[in-house]
């Protein structure tokens, strides 16, 4: 039984943690949140130099040639740091889409630029409130142009390239769109987590190139499954950090002559939060295994990872505020950074409810 990361992978994780502790304190996230900026340019550059953008990209395409296990641990550390950069859409979605579904020509054209960080990509799926699902996608692809509205899209203002979920002739498909082309109108929108900006993108006959093998519901679902596992690691990293911060605060804060952490209600709820994080961690590990081995269990593993990680991080986001008492509700304290990021990550690939529905479909298939 070897249901754990290797020593080398853990060393990579430690390197990532040390790097982010030095270069991505919570003030970096707060800075983007407060300034209305698109991301931390310095951090993006640093992360690119560390080789993380191309962690799972083969060396032939300018990457580091590692695998999804290494990428999972990088995701964990980025989540822990609430890193305010477009890593998730560019790496877990766009880069993964090219790796899984791109033609050699498409890979050659785009992967090196994504791996170097010179190009930022994003992913556009949702179109309107609710649960349209892949069958409900209305953005159409016809004769290599796309028309329709995507909302919300992460990093729309920043990205040069988007992988867009479209309705093609054969059903749902993935298409590459250069966002600075004509027929693309990107508008920033307000969101609950300004450290990860969102936009609305209207496509009017914009040039689009289908991803060679990214055709059909199974393909698009598979991409979302991959991203769900990697995102789960970010969620878990954030949840762990929130638990640690809450623990530290409640140990130091006294009421009625003793630490707030000594009251049983607080102790028991933190025990529950710990358990939720461990259940999520275990589910995410299984997802990482399925992702790294290409196992068919990825379908159910991704659902388990996403739902459990969303529950854990959302709970952590709520508890960190509640257990800080009144100061937890201030702008000045960092609690709301976790509250916001947890909610965003639990919605961005579709809410946990959608993934619960998908899980039963897959168990019954």
């Amino acid at each position, binding site marked *: *039984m*070897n*249901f*754990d*990361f*290797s020593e080398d992978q853990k060393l990579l994780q430690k390197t990532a943690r040390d790097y982010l502790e030095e270069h991505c304190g919570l003030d970096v996230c707060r800075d983007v949140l407060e300034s209305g900026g698109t991301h931390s340019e310095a951090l993006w550059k640093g992360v690119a130099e560390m080789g993380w953008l191309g962690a799972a990209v083969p060396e032939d395409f300018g990457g580091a040639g590692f695998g999804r*296990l290494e990428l999972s641990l990088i995701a964990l550390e980025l989540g822990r740091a609430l890193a305010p950069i477009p890593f998730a859409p560019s790496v877990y979605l766009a880069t993964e889409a090219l790796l899984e579904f791109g033609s050699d020509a498409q890979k050659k054209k785009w992967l090196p630029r994504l791996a170097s960080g010179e190009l930022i990509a994003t992913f556009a799926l949702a179109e309107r409130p609710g649960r349209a699902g892949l069958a409900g996608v209305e953005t159409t692809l016809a004769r290599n142009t796309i028309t329709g509205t995507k909302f919300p899209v992460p990093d729309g203002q920043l990205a040069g390239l988007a992988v867009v979920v479209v309705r093609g002739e054969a059903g749902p498909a993935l298409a590459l769109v250069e966002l600075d082309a004509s027929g693309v109108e990107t508008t920033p929108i307000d969101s609950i987590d300004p450290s990860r900006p969102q936009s609305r993108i209207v496509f009017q006959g914009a040039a689009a190139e289908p991803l060679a093998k990214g055709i059909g519901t199974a393909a698009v679902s598979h991409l979302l499954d991959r991203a769900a596992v990697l995102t789960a690691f970010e969620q878990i990293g954030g949840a762990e950090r929130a638990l640690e911060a809450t*623990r530290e605060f*409640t*140990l130091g804060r006294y009421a009625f002559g*003793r*630490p707030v*952490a*000594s009251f*049983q209600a*607080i*102790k*028991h709820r*933190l*025990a*529950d939060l*710990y*358990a939720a994080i*461990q*259940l*999520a*961690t*275990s*589910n995410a*590990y*299984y997802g*990482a*295994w399925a992702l*790294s*081995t290409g196992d068919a269990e990825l379908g*159910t593993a991704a*659902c*388990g990872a996403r*739902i*459990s990680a969303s529950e854990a991080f959302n709970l952590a986001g709520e508890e960190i505020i509640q257990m800080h008492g009144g100061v937890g509700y201030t702008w000045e304290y960092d609690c709301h950074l976790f509250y916001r990021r947890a909610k965003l990550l639990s919605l961005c690939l579709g809410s946990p*409810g959608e*993934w*619960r*529905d998908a*899980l*039963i479909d897959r*168990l*019954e298939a």
Partner: protein
Amino acid sequence: MDFNDTPEEAAFRAEARTWLEANAEPLPPGKRRASGMDRDDLLPEAKAWQAKKADHGWACLTWPKEYGGRAAPGIHSVIFGQEESKFDVPPYMFGIGQGMLGPTIMAHGTEEQKTRYIEPLLRADEVWCQLFSEPAAGSDLAGLRTSAVKDGDDWIVNGQKIWTTGAHYSDFGMIVTRTDPTAAKHAGITYFIVDMKSPGIEIRPIVQINGAKDFNEVFFNDVRIPDANRVGAVNDGWRGAITTLMNERASIGSGGGMGVGISDVLRLARETDWGGRKAIEDTSVRERIADFYWKLKGLEYTGYRAQTSLSRGQTPGPENSIGKMVGAPLRQEMAAFAMELQGAAGAASGDAASLGGAFQAAWLGSPGLRLAGGTDEILHNIVAERVLGLPGEIRVDKEKAFQDIPTGSLK
């Protein structure tokens, strides 16, 4: 990351499988190995199987060789258990003695005690019970009142133990007693081995809410225990009790003992009528089942993480402590959900109910799981204190002499 044995583990597994194939029949499909709970009639067969394993070096694998074990790493125990579970063998009814009390004697007993008791315990020639809890001392075990008073070379024991599994068929027990009520509560406790056939011991079964009788009250009326049976120093018995309790925690649980699983719930939902469709098509049903799924899988995969530690010769990490804390209430919730799914018919039980009443049986059994072996509440304290390092509960009884501690009106 993989689920493979190391070469050494694979070799051990093959050896275990070979021996089992030569000495037992495979489990027929659909048949589950009986648990020993409420099945005293299976004790003779259970003992015979344990003796056979002992004869061939397959008993208590992790115990030192001098006591009949193989000094094997913990992972070997897990592997043997996995292989054994595929065979139609009698239930294992010796977990208390072999899992907890034997290791306690090995850690704290005299050489004479080890020589006299360990081997028959390993072979299940002698069966043991744990005499810990009392009506006034469950979660607060150190609040125990059963007294032991020195009389020559013996101790005279008076009092009552409760929740003693298997007392009625046990040969020996290990009992924690109060030997100095003037000392603070942890400081006046002494630990003994007691012959369950001693005069003055009266055993009465406790009937559980599900009608089973796995546990007993054990009354001690002037029971004589020789000083030679004392384990550890006088008034230092709490140390040994902690060893016993630590060993209770050492077992690696995986999903095994749930009784009903996710596939049973899915099948039920598929077959149950639901407003012109089947329940599995209803969103609220799907959401509940999905949540059971990832929680159960989370526990199962957490077990794999623990096994991985064992495989590396390490102690399983703190995440392993969530198993019962999460699993016990989850079992109750799932059983209740399955019954609700059936509407009024969910109240039927036994053969009148679907799955032979397995959901109803699980529902009736589940409150006990949330209480035995550490209540939900105590487990939350343990995770908070030992895993998260949060402060312990305020003790109003810490400095007091035991006899001065308030006890309330319920006796």
